[in-house]
């Protein structure tokens, strides 16, 4: 499937699903389990909640301006059992976002910042005992 724009509400961030990260594509890049999983993960990260409602929640954004997401039931989102979605901040503010499933902390650019981890614990997205395992690249 070629790259395609995910049509989102006009006042939300724009998203582009990139061909090389789609499940049906060959190649060695990390891949989402499905298009719907990819869309859901971006929505969660942008809205900062699982209801996809715009309220006082800010996005699940790290100090570098990248967006992150994890499913509420912690199930895999990628074909190699990745549980997290990573969406790097676009170079230009009006560009579309895009992302891929990852296991955090395998490279410095894939480190989730402390503030976002603490926020997820405070909001009940993660349990405090999950943090040690996320840093060690384990499944939670």
């Amino acid at each position: 499937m070629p790259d395609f724009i995910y049509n989102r509400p006009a006042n939300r961030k724009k998203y582009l699903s990139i061909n090389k990260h789609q499940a049906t594509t060959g190649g060695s890049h990390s891949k989402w389990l499905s298009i719907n999983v990819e869309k859901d993960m971006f929505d969660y990260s942008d809205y900062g909640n699982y209801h996809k409602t715009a309220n006082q929640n800010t996005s699940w954004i790290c100090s570098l301006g990248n967006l992150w997401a994890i499913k509420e039931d912690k199930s895999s989102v990628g074909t190699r059992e990745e549980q997290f979605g990573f969406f790097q901040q676009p170079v230009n503010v009006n560009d579309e976002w895009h992302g891929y499933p990852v296991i955090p902390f395998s490279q410095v650019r894939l480190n989730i910042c402390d503030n976002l981890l603490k926020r997820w614990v405070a909001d009940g997205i993660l349990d405090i005992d999950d943090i040690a395992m996320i840093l060690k690249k384990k499944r939670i």
Partner: protein
Amino acid sequence: MKIITSINIYNFHVIISYLGDGLDVIKFEDLRSKRLKISAQYVEKILSRSTLTEITPLRHHIFGIENSKLKNLSLENEYSIIYEDISASQISFDFTSPSLIVLNEENLIQEIRPSFTKNLFIKDKFSTKSLQENAPLTVSNMRNNHGQILMSIRGFGITLIDRERKETIYRTEDAQDVLFMNSHNIIVVADYKGILFFKDRDRKPFKTIRLKDNDIPQEIVSFNQKLLIKGKNGLYLYDFSQEQISCIWNQKVGAFAVYFDMIFLSSQNKLYMISYSNSTVEHFKIRNEKLGVEAINYFHK
């Protein structure tokens, strides 16, 4: 909020790392430390703006990873910190060479001669077929066993690299940890699907055990001739001779470490020391009482 990210035990000191908040180094006492007359004087706090992971104590120093770079700190001198310009995502120590084995961010293995007074020197660097041909892969743990390197690889399995750099691959679902049990000459894998046992070089597991309520195994260590398993929702002990598994801690565990007959663990950010020995529990005393380590006998042998 201070969040515990790892626990290490070294020379009768508990080393606790926190998310973005450095390390505490606290001495403890028990019957053994009194008998051995431990005289080490370590700093009590090591400050760090970023989280230190993969902490590996060695000769009164700590090697660790901060922002994917290797860091070398002295436990005796809080001002002695050497920042190495060496990319790192996993560390293990080969006592036979002796060398630090460091996996970098590109999944290349670096063999490093350890030094405690000057910057480290990479004496060799090599790639592995399994990690390069199937990239991108994430290594969840790396261990050294008499010069052999064992790696657990997420969504892939296990790679064993022998001294001649020959690789043997054991495919599993989603390997979280791996251990070579020398006493039984087997490789044990903590996998998403359970605990898998492999005979050396035999690619199919000869045994698979599942944890209670299909708990997910995350880490495994050898503990007093048994296998200690950290699951997402508890701690378990597998007795090889009885072929039985028992749950010794029925709540979530964040970090843990073992030392003699003691298991140190964090659960909901509270610290515990558990042991099957009444004597160990009775004589355990932590120097910093503000830390509040609760000592418990878990009643299993």
